[in-house]
């Protein structure tokens, strides 16, 4: 049994997919940084950032709808910034009272909230495009290239590898339970027997079964980690993380990196100069 839906990578042939993963990774980080540093209420800059993002989405042939649908999953978290509307600014916009509590919404607060929401929405889109257009092993290479500690990168790699195995195992356990949770036919041999046997068992019993399954999953993961370490040791692992040297970045990729970074820098400058 394979779990594919966890893997965000969508193979397509597009210039974005073909771009050097290291360049993509750095540009994505730079984009998120730019979005974060752009001053509050610099609406034209946000619109330019959004335009850049949309063109990348169209170029990647992932489809704008696909990316926007996924990005909407992050919106509930933005609500954490909701209170700034009421705590921030002088220009009262509206006010209402709940019982003895009076809440006043301010224009500055509202602008701040909308800015935060937009920024996070843009950043999430950038991350989605990166993850959907780059196979995870390539992302790991990119992390290595920008000098994220090797041990950390190796841990990401192992986590990603065994997340699937663990989910597979959980699904196998649940399937095994489902396969053995039959219902008795409604027409039993005697009415008394029928009344006394409710299929599925009591809630406490079901909870015990679920608890046992969780425990068994934990034990399996724990023992597996032991065996993986054995397999690594058997092939010479000595606690140090080693890898083959990375190939060099091609001139075209350097060009993409330079122009991308330059554009983001200009946008940031624009925002800071006029709205900062």
């Amino acid at each position, binding site marked *: 049994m394979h779990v594919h839906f966890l893997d965000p990578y969508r193979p397509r042939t597009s210039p974005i997919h073909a771009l050097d993963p290291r360049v993509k990774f750095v540009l994505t980080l730079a984009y998120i940084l730019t979005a974060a540093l752009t001053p509050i209420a610099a609406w034209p800059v946000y619109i330019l950032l959004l335009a850049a993002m949309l063109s990348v989405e169209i170029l990647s042939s992932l489809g704008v709808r696909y990316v926007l649908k996924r990005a909407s999953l992050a919106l509930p978290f933005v609500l954490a910034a909701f209170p700034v509307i009421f705590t921030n600014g002088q220009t009262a916009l509206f006010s209402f009272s709940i019982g003895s509590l009076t809440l006043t919404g301010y224009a500055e607060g509202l602008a701040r909230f909308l800015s935060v929401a937009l920024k996070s929405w843009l950043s999430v889109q950038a991350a989605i495009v990166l993850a959907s257009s780059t196979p995870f092993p390539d992302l*790991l290479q990119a992390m290595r290239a920008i000098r994220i500690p090797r041990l950390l990168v190796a841990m990401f790699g192992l986590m990603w*590898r065994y997340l699937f195995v663990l989910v597979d195992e959980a699904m196998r356990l649940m399937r095994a339970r489902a396969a053995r949770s039959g219902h008795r036919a409604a027409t039993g041999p005697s009415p008394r027997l029928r009344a006394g046997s409710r299929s599925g068992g009591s809630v406490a019993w079901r909870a015990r079964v679920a608890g046992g399954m969780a425990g068994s999953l934990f034990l399996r993961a724990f023992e597996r980690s032991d065996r993986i370490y054995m397999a*690594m040791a058997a092939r*010479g*692992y000595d606690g140090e993380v080693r*890898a083959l040297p990375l190939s060099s970045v091609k001139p075209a990729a350097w060009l993409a990196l330079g122009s991308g970074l330059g554009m983001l820098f200009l946008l940031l400058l624009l925002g800071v100069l006029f709205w900062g």
Partner: protein
Amino acid sequence: MHHSIEVDHLSFSYPDSHAALRDVSLRISPGEKVALAGPNGAGKSTLILHLNGILKGDGQVTVCGLPVEQKNLGRVRAAVGLVFQNPDDQLFSPTVFDDVAFGPLYQGLPPAEVERRVTSALAAVRMSDYARRVSHHLSTGEKKRIAIATVLSMEPEILVLDEPTAGLDPRARRALINLLRGLPLTMLVSSHDLAMARELLPRMVVMDEGRIVADGPTQELLGDEKLLEAHGLEKP
């Protein structure tokens, strides 16, 4: 170096004090191909894990003339290629290529040589097209073959395989047998596939309840129905 395996009076208990090996002694000469048979829980996998120092019991294990102990572990592990029973444990890297390159990389080989080893190991198990694939999307049989490639790339002198044919289709099994026959290595193969043992491995060691209960030519042992029946085996 002489590519031999010597096990002297080895006993081992798991931490839950279950005795898995009881006074096991075994000698395998260079170039010999030996089958390790026995019912489930006989201790085959446990014995195999001792051969490159992953488990340490009471007694002496010597591989290629090197006692298996802390200061020799690096050389012992380079000399013994160990394929685990479950390929999901063996394939821990993000891609097939990374996994096959792991052993050579830790032997400290130069990058060009690592690439060459990976290419030839994948060719040997006929999985050359899979280098860039991601291991968890492979089928069991494919994983098994990659697992074997991960040790072939280390160019070991001794090959130790734990149930290599379990889960393989007849064609993959046949290819594996042909592959193993062509390798001039010392081999210890734990298996329930006695037909393969008869074909490929001239000597057989039978284990049961942590002890070695028989050791001799495969043909002869497979003819001894009483022995086979006593230890839960079946004539192929």
